């Protein structure tokens, strides 16, 4: 009796916790509502399956409890039941996978009009690089990294001469414009993660990775590191500020110091 009751309590309690607890995702600030939708579909399907299984188990524990005169039935297998359950499960899994793969395809397909910004992780802070008027980020090489050239921009690449390096400020981005975030690390793995944007990707030394998103809400957002990167992992904070277009241009114009820095390193 107690066991069956506790099992019911586990099922009902879990569902109640899901709906009543104050802990839920952050309000979204990007175009990745599709990811949230897929997550909600997954919650529903798995939640129903979980509740059904635990309640069925509780029912069995109560109904088929050992008592005098009661015997179990001998039934090695039941082909039809097993096939039916396999089929239903396959359908449920397909119902989860199909939307997931469709949204994944969107996630990895960067729109042609996306502008590019670079985020560079290092122990234990974030730097950013924006293309100058030419709209192109110059070549980089980690072997060129030094006090005067924190991101290793190649001074011999003209495309890099106007690049804007942001060292001591939050990254600013204009609202409503898709942006391809080019990710690099110069020492160990990092991961640039702003929960409100939903997107994240590891930064790997020796490689360039990316994700893309469109900011949909202005405001100040905290970026954290989501890949263990050593002692300072938990304090490696950054900021992203989403602003209107004019404000963004004003901020960009004020970042001239970075340009000079790259030119000086040449």
């Amino acid at each position: 009796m107690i066991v069956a009751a506790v099992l019911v309590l586990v099922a009902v309690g879990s569902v109640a916790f899901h709906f009543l607890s104050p802990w839920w995702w952050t309000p979204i600030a990007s175009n990745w509502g599709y990811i949230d939708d897929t997550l909600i579909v997954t919650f529903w399907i798995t939640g129903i399956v979980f509740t059904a299984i635990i309640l069925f188990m509780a029912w069995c524990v109560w109904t088929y409890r050992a008592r005098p005169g009661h015997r179990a039935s001998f039934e090695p297998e039941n082909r039809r039941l097993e096939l039916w359950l396999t089929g239903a499960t396959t359908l449920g899994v397909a119902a989860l996978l199909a939307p997931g793969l469709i949204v994944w395809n969107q996630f990895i397909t960067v729109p042609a009009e996306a502008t590019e910004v670079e985020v560079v992780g290092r122990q234990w802070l974030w730097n950013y690089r924006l293309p100058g008027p030419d709209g192109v980020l110059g070549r980089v090489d980690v072997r060129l990294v030094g006090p005067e050239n924190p991101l290793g921009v190649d001074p011999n690449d003209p495309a890099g001469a106007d690049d804007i390096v942001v060292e001591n400020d939050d990254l600013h981005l204009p609202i409503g414009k898709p942006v391809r975030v080019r990710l690099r690390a110069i020492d160990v793995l990092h991961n640039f993660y702003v929960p409100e944007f939903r997107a994240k990707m590891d930064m790997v030394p020796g490689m360039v990775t990316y994700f893309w998103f469109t900011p949909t809400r202005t405001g100040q957002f905290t970026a954290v590191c989501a890949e263990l990167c050593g002692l300072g992992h938990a304090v490696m904070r950054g900021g992203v500020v989403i602003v209107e277009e004019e404000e963004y241009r004003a901020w960009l114009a004020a970042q001239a110091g970075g340009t000079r820095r790259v030119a000086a390193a040449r």
Partner: protein
Amino acid sequence: MTTASSPLNGFPDRVPPAEVEDVELYHAKSWITRWVFSQDAKIIGIQYATTATAIGLVALVLSWLMRLQLGFPGTFDFITPAEYYQFITMHGMIMVVYLLTALFLGGFGNYLIPLMVGARDMVFPYMNMLSYWIYLLAVLVLVASFFAPGGPTGAGWTLYPPQAILSGTPGGTGSGIILMLVSLILFIIGFTMGGLNYVITVLQARARGMTLMRMPLTVWGIFTATVMALLAFPALFVSAVMMLFDMLLGTSFFMPALVEMGELAKHEGGSPLLFQHLFWFFGHPEVYIVALPAFGIVSDLISVHARRNIFGYRMMVWAIVIIGALSFIVWAHHMYVSGMNPWFGFFFATTTLIIAVPTAIKVYNWLLTLWRGDIHLTVPMLFALAFIVTFVNGGLTGLFLGNVVVDVPLSDTMFVVAHFHMVMGVAPIFVIFGAIYHWYPKITGRMLNEAMGQIHFWVSFLGAYLIFFPMHYLGLIGVPRRYHELGPTSFIPESAATLNAFITIVALIVGAAQMLFLFNLAWSIRHGRPSGPNPWRAASLEWQTPETPPGHGNWGDTLPVVHRWAYDYNVPGAAEDFIPQTVPPSDTAATGEHR
């Protein structure tokens, strides 16, 4: 002897002649060779289990320390960030490799395989003995790293380079990481010796009549997991060797050109992703190396204590085999946001979700074994039920993380920590507990104390669920894993700290309940109720030994002959509610219809 055909496997009741002569065992001549350097699989199994439990206690204490830090950050001055990372790293590695793998395969595998298939011992007893001693050496090397200058490695149990061997990571440039890698290499060498034994014993040393499709699912689970481990551990072996070379010889297998603390390091051209692929080629099968023995054992616990045949035995066997095979082509679902080619996501998400189907079949068949059963709520059965709850919960959250795009916001958050603890921490450990309560009478001849068992069960089950269920929601907020403190972070509400404190308090209580369990284990050896040879009235072979605990050579003068599967419970027409595997068909009225 009749040859009544079986409705289960289409074979006649076949008891082939003995093809292999009964072996002459090594007989110990002294106390040392009998109890210490023993070649008896039962002793080796107990040695494995004791060592694994001892090092598991270290992991338990580490988990307390890290929970204290997370629940009450800033309160405990003696826990620095460096130590916190060392705690999580050692906790993870100990639990996955040195406890779970060693206990399931080295502990239960050694004790149960020969008894359950009707062999006198493992086929290579000397190598089996070496296996344990090399495992013990691996554990000692691991423990030594706690006392090494700079302490053990704090690279996370995944040991991802480049950080694992750089100065920004605790133990990264000292002996911490070296001892970790050497210990893993030793563990794999030792395991390989034992693993070959388990596989060959199952294939070559089964009793007459013990066809593969009559083996208990426990043996199927351990057997398949061992085959997988023999295929998967070499990937970890080579990555450990290559990382040692990168560190000690200056090679660059995993090390690209990079800046270390402002200086250009002396590496060039290596690939951090290569390590991740190798690691998870081992690491994902590893999940099932732990899970499959648990699947097998829990099937037998449920069947015995529900007094009902396991439902869908053949499906259960095939599900174990298929899960084992599929688990080798899903590894990169641990790497969706690693920066690997994003097109891999389509393939690995598909294979990962396909594996949910055979896994679900197993869950259904456990439930359908309870259905129409005669359920005795013994402590082993309670732990089996708790396993189903936690495994279903953790398995379903796997559908979030396996579905590539849903994984993007959740990966590297506390959701992942909650998921894998539920599915491959709590669930298999509940099976271990259930199995110990179940087989302890066979090992010692005495029952474990029931009252202590009940307390241990309720605190562990409800506590573990209260720890890990709410933890998923911390991850949903976006709280990253492997943070020694959350600090002031705009998106993390104050209430998250309250939840963390709650989880810590529950974790301390659950940990304390394990002390009661250990006390029970020790106390019952002398004071437990004598169990007799078969207290659960179980049908499988290990309960039919002439002596309890089984003597040297297991079976007395003659090896057993097997006439049926291990699940003849409540067979219609039979006088008893179980028919042991050794009972010939002619000895029971029920034979004509049901084997």
